[in-house]
């Protein structure tokens, strides 16, 4: 395999690239939705992790008991 196979671009212009030979809707619909759901997964996970910092009612109760 020649290295230029991987580094040479297949496209003559940006509009060529965006048009995807007339299949833009399908190609960008695939890559776009994949990126979107992956970002959503990471965002919802970090939100779940952040919510650990909110004290749970159960823990509060114990802390109150200890305090009293």
């Amino acid at each position: 395999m020649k290295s230029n196979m991987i580094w040479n671009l297949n496209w003559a212009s940006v509009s060529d690239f965006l048009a995807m030979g007339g299949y833009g809707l399908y190609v960008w619909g695939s890559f776009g939705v994949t990126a979107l759901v992956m970002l959503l997964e990471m965002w919802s996970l970090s939100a779940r992790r952040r919510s650990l910092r909110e004290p749970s009612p159960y823990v509060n109760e114990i802390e109150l008991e200890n305090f009293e």
Partner: protein
Amino acid sequence: MTASSRKTNWFKYAAPQRLHSLAGTALPWFGALAVALTLLGLWIGLGAAPTDAQQGEVYRIIFIHVPAAWMSMVIYLAMAFWAGVGLVFNARSASALALALAPTGALMTFIALWTGALWGKPTWGAWWVWDARLTSELILLFLYIGYLSLHAAIDDTRRADRAAALLALVGVVNVPIIYFSVKWWNTLHQGASVNLLRAPSMATTMLVGMLVMALAFWMYSIAVALLRLRVILLEREQHTAWARQVVDEMRA
């Protein structure tokens, strides 16, 4: 005595605290590899790979479709394996790992189905056909959703782990059905493009792009599952001193 409390070296990382810390150490490496491989894979798949002689540019969808479909099956097997370990050895950490893998597996299955539909419309003329490959992959999505729903429906965590593990193990039978469906039935879906026993039926740049994207999806799946595992371990071990200390450090 649970497996997690044994002193054997093998079970060292079965203790939730150790596993949480190990996952935290491994996470940045897998995350960095996922980002680097995704950028390289997108460059090759969308930028460098030549136009396909038969399909034109729409074939580029396979650079995410095939890796996602592979991961949907691999993650299911891993999830069922760890769910089974959790069931047989009563190992809490293994059950947590199975639960951490399930949403990412479901996501990969959704991506495989979604990109397949977007490829099928211009290529076959239909978004969806009730073909053996497509139908068994849809059943895989329902298995993931069933596993997660069953787990969420049972309040007691360990009982939920056991019940969901049974469902996961029964569902394993679907994975070889997906994999061999293109051979066993005369399906519309094409056969495997990459096979260990013979030369691949595609150009080298396309093959390299697909393998790099497959590695990127592996790294993404491992990184996200490790992150979710850490959150699940902290949620489940809230009553322990170490977990409360970790959460306190997050607050600081």
